[in-house]
């Protein structure tokens, strides 16, 4: 079958302008037309080739600034390449800036109709699909209210519903899976799978390698605008993740061993990883490093940083001696971005009760760059935790529980 998307040797060049490039006539006149010309240019994408067949899903992974979004735009026909060719057969649909085109004063129905027409359907076709869209977004009761009264989640649901009901032949998706609750996410994935089985070619951008591995038939890894690898998602995702780790290792400076509060020696690249731009100076488990199952546990993390660091992510995980992960949490998932940190500080994770089975565990603590691209400091298997229990329990959990036996009737002898 003919490919739905063919990209050949694609290249896109951007100009770099002076920081003080004038943006108004006034400024341009005052600066005497200085700084109006570009000072420099660079290739945001170069020598990129791939093709996607109908019914196939391609995942594109890469760090911020690797050119993923530029590539998606060019495939979408927004902007023109400086080199190479893009061919797309069939109607394009896109899940980009979901809900950005909505107007708060118009009702959900009016917005949905306009957006559907903008996406490429005639008015008749759009009206025919409107009920389906509303039902999919689960907004029957609110559809005639102005969109400004909607929550962000509701807007996203409506925008997603519109995008997947335009019956595209080619669908472009930019990091979409933060739409709504888990149930709605599952529905979205179902719908995407359905489109795919109907022969829609899909391109998905993600910096989550796991997602690409699970969903895609092929993967492309972009690195500084060039194709670093192209092929099986399992292989590419593996390579991508391992490079992220080794990137952290390379950034880890050499440092004589330090003694942690637990009495264990902290040794760089053995139980401590990271660039050390921010450091974990002390970790304390309160009330004790030995607790009874079901007790509360507080993890105190003291940190220190010379320079200011934007929104780092703090992460705490507990794993057992076999290395099985029992708990894994971080500030981004729980609280959102932390904001700028600088100097010294202390962060406490309060776990109200820890119903772990008795045994020995380690509490691993880390500080990561705001987009998880590498670790500033990560202490691995440094802080032991012992959980005791009155009675032995096998498995991972030991929640409060009891057996109740009630005899309903005794059988006649």
């Amino acid at each position: 079958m003919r490919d739905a998307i063919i990209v050949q040797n694609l290249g896109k060049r951007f100009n770099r302008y002076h920081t003080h490039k004038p943006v108004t006539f006034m400024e341009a006149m005052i600066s005497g037309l200085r700084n109006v010309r570009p000072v420099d240019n660079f290739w945001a994408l170069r020598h990129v080739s791939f093709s996607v067949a109908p019914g196939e899903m391609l995942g594109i992974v890469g760090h911020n600034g690797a050119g993923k979004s530029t590539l998606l735009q060019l495939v979408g026909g927004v902007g023109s390449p400086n080199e190479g060719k893009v061919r797309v057969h069939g109607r394009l649909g896109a899940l980009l800036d979901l809900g950005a085109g909505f107007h708060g004063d118009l009702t959900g129905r009016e917005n949905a109709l306009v957006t559907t027409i903008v996406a490429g359907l005639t008015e008749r076709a759009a009206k025919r699909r409107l009920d389906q869209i509303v039902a999919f977004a689960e907004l029957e009761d609110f559809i005639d209210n102005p969109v400004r009264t909607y929550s962000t989640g509701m807007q996203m649901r409506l925008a997603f519903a519109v995008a997947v009901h335009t019956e595209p032949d080619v669908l472009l998706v930019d990091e979409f899976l933060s739409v709504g609750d888990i149930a709605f996410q599952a529905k979205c994935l179902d719908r995407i799978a359905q489109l795919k089985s109907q022969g829609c070619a899909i391109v998905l951008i993600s910096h989550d390698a796991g997602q690409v591995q699970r969903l895609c038939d092929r993967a492309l890894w972009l690195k500084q605008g060039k194709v670093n690898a192209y092929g099986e998602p399992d292989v590419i995702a593996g390579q991508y993740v391992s490079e992220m780790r080794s990137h952290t290792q390379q950034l880890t400076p050499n440092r004589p061993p330090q003694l942690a509060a637990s009495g264990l020696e902290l040794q760089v690249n053995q139980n401590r990883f990271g660039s050390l731009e921010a450091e974990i100076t002390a970790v304390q488990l309160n009330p004790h490093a030995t607790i009874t199952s079901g007790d509360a546990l507080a993890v105190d993390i003291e940190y220190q940083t010379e320079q200011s660091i934007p929104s780092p992510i703090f992460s705490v995980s507990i794993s057992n001696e076999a290395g099985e992960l029992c708990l894994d949490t971080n500030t981004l998932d729980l609280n959102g971005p932390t904001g700028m940190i600088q100097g010294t500080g202390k962060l406490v994770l309060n776990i109200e009760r820890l119903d772990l089975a008795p045994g020995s565990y380690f509490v691993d603590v880390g500080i990561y760059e705001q987009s998880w691209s590498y670790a500033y400091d990560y202490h691995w298997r440094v802080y032991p935790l012992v959980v005791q229990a009155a009675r032995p329990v096998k498995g991972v959990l030991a929640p409060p529980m009891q057996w109740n036996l009630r005899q309903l009737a005794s059988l006649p002898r």
Partner: protein
Amino acid sequence: MAEMEQSPHHSGLGLSPIGNGWLGAIAPLRLCCGDPCFGKCHSIFSGSILSTRYTLYETSKATMLGFQSGFRRLNVIPTLHRRWRAKYLYDLLRSLVDRDMKLLYKRSMLGVAWTLLNPLLQLMVFVFVFQVVLPVDVPQYSSFVFTGLLVWTWFQSSLLQATGTIICNRPLIRQPGFPTAILPIVTITTGLIHFILALPVLVVFLWIDGATLTPAALWLPVIQVLQFVVTVGLTYFLAALNVTFRDTQHTLGVLLQLFFYITPIFYDIKNIPVEYQPFFFLNPMVHVVTAYRDILMYGTAPNWPPLLAIAAGAILLMPIGYRIFKHQSNRFVEEL
């Protein structure tokens, strides 16, 4: 997130695009309160300034214009495709105009009546000033001024609004396959609808002033199409310029204010001393306004030669303007 930030300096610029004379009142009310995109566009504007150290633009000329639209839907029979495409563009235009109209009048009690109230109030001021205070010798003065005002209002509001059309519609331009060139047309069509809605009032004035409509009035749609084409041609250039210099809208407001005075809206071209008249005839709007008066008030055919020259000029400039517009809108969405 950066788009949420608004610096006081830029929001000031965004809110007063018309210039500051009393003539600001000529722009219909939507420029002052109803325009849905002013809030958005200046926030995008200030956001991009605050958050990016470098601004990145594409370098190429718009060489690939043809190729982009050419490859979509190769699998459809060409003629069928063309008919479908025309139908689609019509639907798209209608729904976008419909959206604009709804946004304008959603929260106002008077609704479309505003459209009439605005030129009527201006008319009252002009009639008072130039019939009572400084009498001007123009017969049927109310009809004369009202015709001019309606034509000029359509022209000015379309130009001002359509100039912001690229930077106000980022989500639409980023939509794959969206025909960006339709955006100024949407704005101008919305203005045309307001113009047409005001026509019955003009007829009433003509009747009061004792002018009778003759078959020459049937030229009206032709003159409107002509003005439409001229306006579209101009807005392609202006909207494109506004991407590079964000104060284009502001500057344009001032220029249009000056042009209002040197176009015979509230005076007759015959009042101007003969030695200055040739300069006035260089302004295309002079001929357009005169043509409307010829067919509606005096019942004569318009003076075709200058009108045809204007039409030819507009049609010649259109493809160039279109290319620049397309190029700049691409550049705008590619800015990092």
